[in-house]
């Protein structure tokens, strides 16, 4: 009897030990859930390319971290906040997902923030751009990686004002992102002594921009600022071209333009456009090597959102590797402690308001004669230091910073 007791005590002690070893990694695996737009307006900007980028980060770890396998699940949120929130909730409650990643479209990111806050899970935002995500709408576990509307305003907005574009008219996508972008650019323009003559809010997504372009033309503003993204930006630039906006002396400022947009427009139409980017494939040997691999996988060059997804997922996994745990608070603390160091960001700092601060770049679209072929589209004009782009932590209005 005594023997049985001792034996059972020994067995349970062993069992306890074993479970203690793997308890650090919940459910014995690290599961990353990518919620992105796989089929609509932003699927070229993020979408399947963002999934591929996350896979590349996971491959770097050999599919394993801290002795546990890494799993990736993906879902198409169709730019709808309710679909995104429901999927995230299900993933978190019963799907054993440890972190939500990518999250393009502001309304989606905000809805997922709500779920991440309730479930105390990390949200790695790459595609959504609105600066409120690390200000008024911030959550302790929400990390904003790639860029934000403030950085875009500081980059493109300032550059355009400096060239004499001191009166603006906005074409703004009628949802949280468009509003945030217009607000941030307006602040930059007014600070530099320029003024905003008016704006028009267009439905998202919109297919015909001729009416809005005509209203912008009638405003007499020197600059027509496009506070939209993806297919909307492409169609607005096309309409501006068709209705002779530039020939008439006004200029177009695309406030959020992606490499995929330039590819779709063609250099003939897009040349001379200024854009603020978080990443360009042709910056140094590291970015070129990574992008070449990405190209082999997807047939396209990466956008900043896709490269940022890679960086965010990689840094998350690095923190798990370093701590041997996937506990949210432990990982988060480690992610903040370690500088973000990869081909996307050098010495990137993750702040307590959730902002990942790294350098941004002002770029100009090449003329067809300057380009050596497909994807050779940009020249980097200026490096915008991280703090100038994103502001200081003191300026952040995040209540939990």
């Amino acid at each position, binding site marked *: 009897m005594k023997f049985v007791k001792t034996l059972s005590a020994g067995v349970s002690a062993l069992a306890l030990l074993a479970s203690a070893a793997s308890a650090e990694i919940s459910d014995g695996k690290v599961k990353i859930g990518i919620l992105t737009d796989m*089929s609509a307006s932003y699927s070229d900007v993020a979408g399947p390319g963002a999934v591929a980028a996350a896979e590349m980060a996971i491959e770097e770890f050999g599919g394993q971290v801290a002795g546990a396998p890494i799993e990736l699940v993906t879902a198409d949120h169709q730019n709808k906040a309710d679909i995104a929130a429901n999927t995230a909730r299900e993933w978190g409650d019963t799907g054993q997902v440890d972190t939500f990643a990518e999250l393009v479209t502001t309304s989606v990111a905000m809805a997922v923030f709500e779920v991440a806050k309730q479930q105390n899970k990390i949200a790695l935002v790459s595609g959504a751009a609105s600066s409120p995500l690390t200000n008024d709408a911030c959550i302790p576990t929400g990390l904003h990686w790639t860029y934000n509307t403030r950085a875009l305003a500081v980059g493109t907005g300032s550059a355009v004002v400096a060239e004499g574009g001191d009166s603006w008219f906005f074409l703004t996508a*009628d949802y949280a992102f468009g509003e945030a972008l217009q607000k941030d650019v307006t602040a930059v323009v007014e600070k530099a002594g320029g003024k905003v003559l008016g704006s028009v809010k267009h439905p998202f997504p919109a297919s015909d921009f001729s009416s809005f372009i005509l209203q912008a033309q009638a405003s007499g503003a020197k600059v027509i600022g496009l506070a939209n993204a993806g*297919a909307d930006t492409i169609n607005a630039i096309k309409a501006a071209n*068709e209705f002779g906006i530039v020939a008439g002396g006004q200029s177009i400022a695309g406030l959020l333009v992606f490499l995929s947009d330039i590819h*779709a427009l063609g250099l003939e139409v897009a040349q001379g456009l200024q854009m603020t980017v978080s990443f360009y494939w042709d910056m140094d040997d590291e970015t070129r090597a990574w992008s070449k691999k990405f190209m082999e996988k997807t047939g396209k060059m990466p956008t900043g959102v896709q490269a940022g997804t890679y960086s965010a997922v990689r840094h998350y996994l690095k923190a798990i590797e370093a701590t041997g745990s996937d506990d949210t608070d432990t990982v988060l603390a480690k992610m903040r402690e370690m500088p973000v160091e990869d081909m996307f960001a050098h010495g990137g700092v993750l702040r307590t308001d959730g902002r990942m601060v790294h350098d941004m770049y002002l770029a100009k679209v090449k003329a067809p004669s300057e380009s050596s072929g497909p994807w050779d589209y940009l020249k980097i004009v200026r490096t915008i230091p991280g703090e100038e782009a994103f502001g200081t932590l003191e300026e952040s209005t995040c209540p939990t910073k």
Partner: protein
Amino acid sequence: MLTELLGFPPQVLFGQLLLGLINGAFYAVLSLGLAVIFGLLNIVNFAHGALYMLGAFAALGITQYLGLGYWGALIVAPIAVGAFGIVIERLLLRRLAGVDHLYGLLLTFGLALVIEGTFVKFFGSSGLPYPTPKALEGGVNLGFMFLPWYRAWVVVASLLVCGATWFLFERTKIGAYLRAGTENPKLLQAFGVNVPLLTTLAYGYGVALAAFAGVLAAPITQVNPLMGSNLIIVVFAVVVIGGMGSIMGAVVTGLAMGVIEGLTKVFWPEASATVIFVVMAIVLVLRPAGLFGKTA
């Protein structure tokens, strides 16, 4: 006077009216195709937007690989896509003859998702550029606005096609058969007319109209896999307002809705995506059969 009251200079208003008319031309051609199909097949063709997109992609392919240019594409693309429509009708839609409308709607909706999904997979969501034909580059300054020649051409081409369709249906023998087929297909068959063939041709023609609109749209918007999905719902509202199956109704309502939408873009831009549905709701309450529909 009125424009001053509303706080908009007349130039802006004229410009918007014209732009509304241009967009209305697209609505007219698309809803015309839908009306033809509904009239003959009693099918609510939800694949119409996808077929419109196919027209634009066909134009791109024809221009790039067959070297026929825009004008060639304007003729060949509708024929090619129309032929594809005939295949759909023969292989799939035929099997749904005689069952509830809902089945046709679901089948064509599914088809649209498959076609669009496949194109997004291969071409992405940003679309591909299609150059404006050389002969129609540039534009003319009308005083109140700069009118690109191409947009003017869109209106002319659309009205010509709508006119030709009206003539075909209302003034020719085939048209008489088609209308008879709508009223009483069994009786028509008894007179020795090949009704199944008529239905197939009507579907092919409706699809060709969608493709034609797609080719017209290609130089204006990107050739984008999703270009039809945004448009199709609006076009359905137009058909409902005009009266299901009414040819004249489809054309007139298409143009009118374009204008109403255009004006909304000035006075209340945020509502421009909704205004047509508001009109639809009002029309359904007051005249359930639509403005031009025959009350049963």
